[in-house]
């Protein structure tokens, strides 16, 4: 197929999907709409993880902490202390950016498994703090009664309107991420993923580029957290707990961490799987776990990876240029093979 025809087909396909999505409230029930909204705010979280994993080559387990943080700030400032919108929302995002910057400074010196464990630990610090603090954050009960604001007179308690706003935000977020991927920053990130040493030798500020990526990713998680808090009206430590963190990681890998659209696809599948499976069995976690094992053993590049192999998806834009789980000659960081602590 010629490039011209491919691009033509892609545009038509995209147009169909967009129309279907925008017109959604007209032909689906309220609960389906709620589920789509859920898909969107978890989608933001997935994009957050996916940016770091796909482009940056780093598995970060801190993203849910940012997701929860923005929700808590909104709850504390908006619901409990009555600050008018958009102050709580802006404060939430500012808090996320600040925390991500601080965390970034700490973690971005490490790579690979150590990076994973560090981000896990930092995420758990946030979780444990929120979980045990009752005087301010009400511990396990969380903050309830969160109401979405009414920007420009729009009533966000209406499902359809909330959906359109979320969809618009998501679309915008995807656009920004796409541009970022193709920008010099994005390309530098790709290079760092492949070989930080080489990039450093070429004069790139590897550390600062990684910190920036971390902050941007956190922003996406924070936005998702705001939408989630508005949608469910409540924020609890569950938003940050380890099982949620693991779930979103699986979601991204399921969709295909090596692709731009992987996180989105993974979220759609995982959320709908939840709805379907929970009507048949409460064993959602087992099913997802098994799916994940299968993916890692058989199709480490996720569903999009499989589609790519059978030719249904292209290797064009949106496809990061490496297979995530295939060995490389040169390791990513200062060599970690064959060395360990003394016993």
């Amino acid at each position, binding site marked *: 197929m010629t490039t011209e025809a491919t691009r033509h087909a892609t545009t038509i396909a995209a147009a169909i999907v967009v129309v279907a999505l925008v017109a959604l409230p007209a032909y689906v029930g309220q609960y389906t709409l709620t589920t789509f909204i859920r898909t969107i705010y978890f989608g933001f979280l997935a994009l957050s993880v996916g940016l770091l994993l796909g482009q940056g080559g780093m598995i970060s387990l801190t993203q849910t902490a940012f997701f929860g943080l923005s929700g808590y700030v909104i709850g504390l400032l908006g619901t409990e202390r009555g600050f008018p919108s958009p102050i709580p929302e802006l404060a939430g995002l500012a808090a996320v950016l600040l925390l991500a910057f601080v965390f970034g400074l700490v973690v971005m010196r490490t790579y690979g498994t150590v990076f994973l464990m560090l981000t896990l*630990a930092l995420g758990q*610090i946030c979780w444990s703090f929120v979980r045990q603090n009752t005087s301010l954050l009400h511990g396990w009960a969380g903050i309830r009664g969160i109401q979405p604001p009414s920007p420009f007179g729009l009533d966000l308690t209406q499902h359809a309107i909330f959906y359109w706003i979320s969809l618009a935000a998501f679309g915008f977020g995807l656009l920004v991420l796409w541009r970022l991927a193709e920008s010099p920053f994005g390309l530098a990130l790709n290079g760092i993923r492949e070989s930080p040493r080489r990039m450093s030798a070429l004069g790139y500020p590897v550390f600062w580029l990684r910190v920036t990526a971390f902050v941007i990713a956190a922003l996406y998680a924070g936005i998702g957290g705001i939408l989630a808090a508005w949608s469910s009206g409540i924020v609890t430590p569950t938003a940050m707990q*380890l099982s949620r963190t693991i779930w979103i990681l699986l979601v991204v890998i399921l969709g295909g961490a090596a692709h731009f659209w992987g996180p989105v696809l993974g979220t759609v599948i995982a959320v709908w799987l939840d709805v379907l499976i929970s009507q048949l069995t409460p064993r959602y976690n087992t099913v997802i776990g098994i799916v*994940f094992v299968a993916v890692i053993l058989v199709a480490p590049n996720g569903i999009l990876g499989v589609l790519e192999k059978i030719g249904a998806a292209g290797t064009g834009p949106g496809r990061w240029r490496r297979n995530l*789980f295939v*060995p490389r000659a040169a390791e990513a960081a200062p060599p970690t093979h064959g060395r360990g*602590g003394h016993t």
Partner: protein
Amino acid sequence: MRLMILILNGLTQGALFFVLGSGLTLAFGLMRVVNMSHGAFYLLGGYLGIAALKLSGSWTVALAAGGLSIALLGLVVERGMLARVREGADLSQTLLTIALSMIIADVALAIWGGHPLSIRSPAAITRPVTLFGLTYPGFRYVLMAIAVLIALLLWLILYRTRFGIAVRASVDDRETVSALGVRIDTIYSLMFMLSALLGGIAGVLGGTYLQLSPGEDTTILTYSLVVIIVGGLGSLLGTLVSALLLGQILSFGLAYAPEMSMFLVFVPMAIVLAIRPEGLFGRRT
């Protein structure tokens, strides 16, 4: 008097941390894999211990059953899954253990239900023991003794057996050891089994003096990771020191600042990582 009780509490907690962390850190040192199902191994080991106690009526049997069954599970996991992705990036193995932890935790929930359970230890060792004017639950002394025993056994294994020599050598230089004719695969399997065994045993111990419930697996995993990160990945001595330290922090934290008790356990980790990322006794990689 109150101070002594808090210190003893810290030692009890530290004992459990040590049993948990020792296997995990050794497995990492050798295989460069962090077993993220370690918490799930703990939980499952404890639950299987409960089942064994019901069948046999003996706590010792429960302890053995909890440990050995998980060791067996470890073997299956290592051979069946980890070995397959071994040639890939290390992250594949870690991710597999993450997925596994979800499955194990959910299956455990399905079988044993949502209500927290605990293991009844023989009344003889559970009753309060009065030593030097201090009344303290007897089982906790037993737990400390078991941890000391395990520490000694591990030291013996590492420094006085051929397996131990092979492990320590492989940690330093995998290829050469393999070239010398030692079956690396067997070493890996045995080490993973040992790590799993310790996890299962920890589950029975924890399930006896505390409780087992859904969600406990992630808490335990997090604590285990903190212990080995602070101690130094791959270092047994490091795990011992950090387990003792963190146990005291947790104990005093629960008494004086209960709202921050978990958080306080994480602070040393943050400090260590900021100043000396390889941990107290880890070797800089």
